[in-house]
């Protein structure tokens, strides 16, 4: 899978990077800042998958996950192939990110 599918997310104000991974934690494509290694992203992906599985027990069919940190947010959306993860600054264009992430997911699942 090409990281080019993630390109539109780069143009959303406040987005710092994105990656997509399978439910197993395998990174399928990444467009993240260079300081993140594939191993780090896979570790993060595994934790996010685990997080979703945990939440499933309390909230079946949870579709999106948002994590707020001191100066960042991490948006995670479930889709057919796994997870789409977007790292943002504290301030970002939420509406544009929601729209763009749907567009990116359509591209990712397109044959």
């Amino acid at each position: 899978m090409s990281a080019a599918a993630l390109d539109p997310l780069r143009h959303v104000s406040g987005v710092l990077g994105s990656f997509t991974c399978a439910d197993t934690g395998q990174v399928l494509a990444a467009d993240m800042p260079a300081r993140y290694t594939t191993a780090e992203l896979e570790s993060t992906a595994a934790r996010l998958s685990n997080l979703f599985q945990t939440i499933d027990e309390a909230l079946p069919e949870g579709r999106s996950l948002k994590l707020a940190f001191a100066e960042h947010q991490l948006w995670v959306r479930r889709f057919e192939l796994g997870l789409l993860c977007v790292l943002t600054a504290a301030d970002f264009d939420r509406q544009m990110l929601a729209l763009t992430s749907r567009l990116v997911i359509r591209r990712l699942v397109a044959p």
Partner: protein
Amino acid sequence: MAASPDVTAVFDADAAPAGAMELAAPAEPAALAPASAPGFAVRLPRAQLGDLIQINCLNRIRGAFRVSSSQGEGHLFFEGGLLVHAACGEQTGLDAVVSMLGWRGGTIEPCEPAWPAQSSIGMGADALLLHAAQRLDERMRDASQRDSTTKVVRRVPHPEPSEPEAELTLPRRSEQSGIALRSPLGLDGLARLEVTRVASDGKIERMKAGASTDLADTAFYCQRLAALVGDGLGIGPCRALACEGATEGLVVFQGRSIIGARGQLEDLKFVLAKVGLG
């Protein structure tokens, strides 16, 4: 005792909703200003008692206020960003606050009663108003149950004790969640949420509104996992997380304790906004 804050308030029993009032806010942080310091008297027709609590906690005011209405009189004591004590008739602590929040109008003014020897609350505005909203909801639910089962109510154990004794078994000073609620009387949705509070060691401290241990376990485990995610990405600890489904959602945020809330997305909107995930 420190000088009383330069705040007076009047609330309108006829025009305003429950708890609405007019209050005069301090022109500067009142904890730093002596009672004789100049200041503006501001009438805020739609202000609520919850607003006064927030203002005083935010400004870390140390002082006491008398809340009077046709339904009774009570006192609120603030110190160091917390509402440390409340008294209303025979009630103290959160029960007293809840009673005052239910009044429909009256006056609020600074006063200088004897400072309480022990605190009965010790919560910041955010957690206080959240708990008060839950307690208010419980009272309304209990009242409706009593109305419909008058003949058997004496034989049925109270499902959720609200006596001060029960409250004393819980920690009092662990409520700094990082969110600020604007008004407890606009929190009907919040009152419907299942809410749990879990200590940092995993011990369940409180469950409200039908919350179950699965919610507590989920909240605790999710907070730990989210912290690992933050560590792994080098972006620090996770303040809050939210998961949304088609109609329901789950919010977990970290104060001194871990708070988990679950309910309809509509009811969660306020919490989501306040933790920056709206």
